[in-house]
């Protein structure tokens, strides 16, 4: 989904979209190792869908997080640029720096960003498939399709 297609989500959500996209790209960039990236896992529209599922206070809190990252970067990151205007590599480095900071609020900020994007990324079926995850019991009604190997436990017991 493009930013334009998502523009009907309200004023603050629209302001947060560039930040969500920039964070998603920084945390799960395109790569040459064959792993799904932020685009193929539809991080942007899935994050928006997730935000709409949350209770209003938590939705506002996450929107605030995304907006803070976007605009506070002007003052927090060398270069006086909005977060989404930094290169993807620079954005990754910034998040990594926050997570490793000795300053507690920065660590909280970095961890919150990492947690939110990781939840979205890891729950995408292509990532589930990429890491080799499967289940031993079928769940036909689940829209999140995960491969089933119902004999896995038996085989595991047979393996020394």
């Amino acid at each position, binding site marked *: 989904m493009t930013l334009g297609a998502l523009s009907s989500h309200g004023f603050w959500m629209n302001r947060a979209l560039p930040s969500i996209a920039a964070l998603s790209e920084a945390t799960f*960039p395109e790569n040459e190792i064959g792993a799904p990236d932020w685009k193929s896992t539809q991080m942007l529209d899935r994050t928006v869908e997730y935000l709409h599922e*949350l*209770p209003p206070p*938590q939705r506002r809190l996450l929107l605030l997080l995304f907006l803070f990252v976007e605009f506070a970067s002007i003052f927090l990151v060398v270069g006086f640029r909005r977060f989404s205007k930094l290169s993807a590599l620079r954005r990754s480095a910034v998040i990594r720096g926050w997570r490793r900071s000795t300053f507690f609020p920065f660590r909280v900020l970095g961890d919150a960003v990492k947690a939110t994007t*990781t939840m*979205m990324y890891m729950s995408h079926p292509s990532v589930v498939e990429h890491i080799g*995850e499967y289940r031993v019991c079928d769940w036909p009604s689940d*829209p999140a399709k995960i491969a089933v190997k119902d004999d896995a*436990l038996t085989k595991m017991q047979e393996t020394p």
Partner: protein
Amino acid sequence: MIYGLDDVRQGFDVECDTVVVGSGAGGAVAALNLATAGQRVVVLEAGPRVRYEDMTRNAPLFLARHFWDGGLRLIGGTTQSPSLQARCLGGGTVVNSAIMLKLPRWVREEWQLETGIGLFTGPELEAAYERVFTRCKVSPTPMAVLGRRNLIVRDAIEGKLGIRGGPLPRAVQGCDGCSDCLTGCVGGHKQSVDRSYLPSNEQHGAEIYTCAEVDGVMTSGARAVGVTGHVIDPRGYRKLARFSVRAKTVILSAGTMHTPVILQRSGINPGGAVGATMFCHVGGGMVGIMEEVVDPWVGATQGWGAISKDIKGLKYEGLWASPSVLMVRWGDVGLPFIERLHEVKHATVVALVYRGKVRGTVKAKRNGMPSMRLWIDESNVSPIARGMKAAADALLQVGARYVHTGLPGVVDEMRSEKDTASLLSPRLKAKHLTMTLNHTFGSCRMTTDATGPVDPNGKVRGIEGLYVCDASVFPSPSAVNPQATIMALADITSRRLAELPLLD
């Protein structure tokens, strides 16, 4: 009868003998005893019913729909720690790993000494455990469903550290080891109270209202006469209508975080002690990346555990959850994270649960939600760090290529004992501990004197007809998973109310 959103959308006003607020471990047990005794019982649950078709392995969506604060609840204080608290019919029993451990003898004795309540060491508690265990079909996790991940933890903790453990006793019958406890048991094997207690409640005539969030207790003089609240749309969180339930007895089983808030909002705060305390189990976790393929998603979620001999109050257990939840703090960001994704199938996780020195509070926010603060004493760091080092060394000895804790200042990929020694660094402080604080207790402590707001019969001091049946009443942390003790204490309190015998 279970009423869903469509049944209660317009609000309701009912009368009964006893209203039970909360349908989780405490509420379901209490309601059944009273319904069995012939009382007209109403159970109110803020969340929706989790039906088979609502379950999904898309963990973020499931959490957003069935957990308080959409699964993003945080406890502030020393650090910002997530706390997963279910908001659905059956409460935490629907989404936990169903571990049923009795209070260790030394905790029972400590509780008795601390509070002067003989019940904790008496035969009544043991009898209550047995009743609960029988109904929930508690049995040790079968070896056949432990999976490789739990067996590696066993080999490390028992084989290398010499701490004797075993398959954890759980309220599960016929577990198929699908490792999905957090998002509800799709196979219906977990004996959560929506399977083990609430159907019997219905058979005995109890009326169960979902999507009904209680705001406060109605009183007349010094007597509770019911509760009021609003019907809430579980998806949009809109308040749809008001409801009231008039009752001779009110039982609060809304959990450690919500029970004190309901009392505070009702102006009931004997001795100022409601929410003035709160405790949590603290601890940590580590990921061992093994040489072999582990397929950690196969096997009981928390199938094997052991209680440390050297460090009092420390429990080790094997753990797994959806990677989308488990990996939120795991590893780096960007390409370095993506490059390590192939290692997930080699992972095994050891969780440490510690009964340490903590103090906390619960206060009602203006929007009616609880605000929790927890201060973790620095004295907790050393035992947790020693426990983590021991477990990390043991994992390396059983073939882990490296061990990762995610703790700041600790070697990121520990590959030797020299690396794991970084866990003992004096620079590691309580604020650095990364953990999920799911076991919370003691916000309305049960005591014989007035230091706690609840008396030894489970009654709120100064208010007739108002009782608490959840982990709020624990005098201090339980050292083990609290579900069995919540149910046993609720069983005792409600049997007294129903005038049923405590000893079979």
